[in-house]
């Protein structure tokens, strides 16, 4: 167990990181992600569009266009174009439901309360747990308890009944696998987790494998790969910024740091988040400096061994001149320069049910 954002979290269970990782890719892994922040934005007007419009003032994302029962990835930005947090946003019909990172949740709630209170009531949810079930057998397992999940596709969100308990289920996650995130009342969470763990397909998975799974999937860990000093364009997260919020779009700008981010969307940024594949077996961990000849051109922000990749992998920010896929660079590992190649992200293609 390790302390993580004020919670005691398991790094691994008995099988260990490697086996847990591979289990999730082949079967179904259960993750307790209850440390994450769940918040409801309830519009004063009763019209969810008013909540969506308000939230759009804090994120460069098309929230108004999010249909009822759909979920989307978003970013809180600051005035410099940096990233305050990344989050998941769901149109829950009569309100907006957001899930934010544990380490940022107090700040995020304060941020939303300060800026959105004219339009919405910001309601942190403190009596619900969050369980992620990820992997190719997640649907089979969860459908035994809640048959209707089989009809959901990637990024759908529904409230479905399990044994008299409403579950807020989305078909999403952070492993690159098909799967679900399930918000459940605290007093039913243990029963739900146990009912899933009792199934042959399901094993509990710790933070260690969660990290290697998300890294193989090319997904950012807030605080490592993105933070207030990185912009969405530097972070290669342009896909999260829909056309309608870009220059020439119907609701262009109107979020913190829009001038910086909209300019970078058109003209590029000086550095970029890329994948790196070391030639040897030595993992290049966070902090490893990246060189092109004698010139330092970047730094690793996440690095580990990829159990499915069967090779080490890293994410790094490198100068845009050196960010093209296939570029040969070197990483400084304990004073030795070791070759790396810039690689496309994700390292392993996602297997979502679209």
């Amino acid at each position, binding site marked *: 167990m390790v302390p993580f954002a004020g919670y005691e979290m398991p*790094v*691994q269970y008995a099988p*260990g*990181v*490697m*086996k847990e990782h591979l289990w999730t890719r082949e079967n179904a892994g259960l993750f307790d992600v209850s440390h994450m922040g769940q918040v409801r934005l309830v519009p004063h007007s009763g019209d969810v569009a008013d909540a969506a419009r308000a939230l759009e003032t804090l994120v460069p994302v098309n929230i108004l266009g999010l249909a009822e029962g759909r979920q989307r990835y978003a970013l809180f930005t600051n005035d410099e174009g940096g990233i305050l947090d990344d989050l998941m946003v769901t149109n829950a019909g009569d309100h907006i439901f957001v899930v934010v990172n544990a380490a940022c949740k107090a700040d995020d709630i304060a941020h939303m309360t300060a800026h959105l209170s004219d339009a919405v009531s910001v309601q942190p949810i403190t009596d619900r747990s969050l369980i992620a079930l990820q992997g190719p057998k997640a649907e089979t397992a969860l459908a035994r308890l809640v048959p209707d999940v089989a009809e959901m596709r990637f990024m759908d969100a529904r409230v479905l009944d399990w044994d008299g308990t409403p579950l807020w289920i989305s078909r999403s996650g952070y492993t690159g696998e098909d799967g679900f995130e399930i918000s459940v009342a605290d007093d039913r969470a243990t029963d739900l987790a146990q009912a899933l763990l009792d199934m042959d397909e399901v094993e509990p998975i710790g933070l*260690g494998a969660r990290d*290697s799974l998300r890294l193989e999937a090319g997904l950012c860990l807030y605080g490592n790969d993105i933070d207030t000093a990185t912009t969405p364009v530097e972070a290669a997260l342009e896909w999260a910024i829909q056309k309608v919020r870009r220059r020439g779009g119907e609701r262009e700008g109107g979020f913190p740091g829009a001038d910086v981010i909209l300019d970078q969307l058109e003209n590029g940024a000086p550095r970029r988040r890329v994948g790196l594949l070391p030639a040897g*077996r*030595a*993992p290049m*961990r966070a902090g490893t400096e990246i060189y092109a000849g004698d010139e330092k051109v970047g730094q690793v922000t996440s690095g*580990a*061994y990829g*159990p499915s990749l069967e090779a*080490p992998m890293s994410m790094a920010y490198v100068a845009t001149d050196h960010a093209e896929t296939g570029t040969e660079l070197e990483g400084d590992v*304990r004073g030795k320069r070791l070759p790396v190649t810039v690689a496309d992200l994700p390292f392993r293609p996602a297997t979502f049910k679209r």
Partner: protein
Amino acid sequence: MKYTEDHEWLRVDGDLVIVGITEHASEQLGDVVFVELPETETQVAKGDEICVIESVKAASDIVAPVDGEIVEVNEALTDNPGLVNEDPTGEAWFFKMKVEDMSQLDDFMSEDEYKDMIG
């Protein structure tokens, strides 16, 4: 077999000392994914950091337990770092040292003493 506070085991074989890490250490490290071995024919001093082990969790150093010369390293670990988890006290030895003064080993722990230390 002798044990160090750094969770290394030492086995004497003639004038050589074979060095590896304990089962306890390999369990604590988790799955080992990379091993960097020292160069052979190098003189090392007790406490020198001469190997790196990377597991899925973190990087750790192996220190030279005594003064001596590295005469052989276990190349099998380079290709198959997982051996460290599978057979830490057997096949997954790290290096063999030629040691002039075997009395350096006198202060190390016995198996029982080591077991007491790790609890």
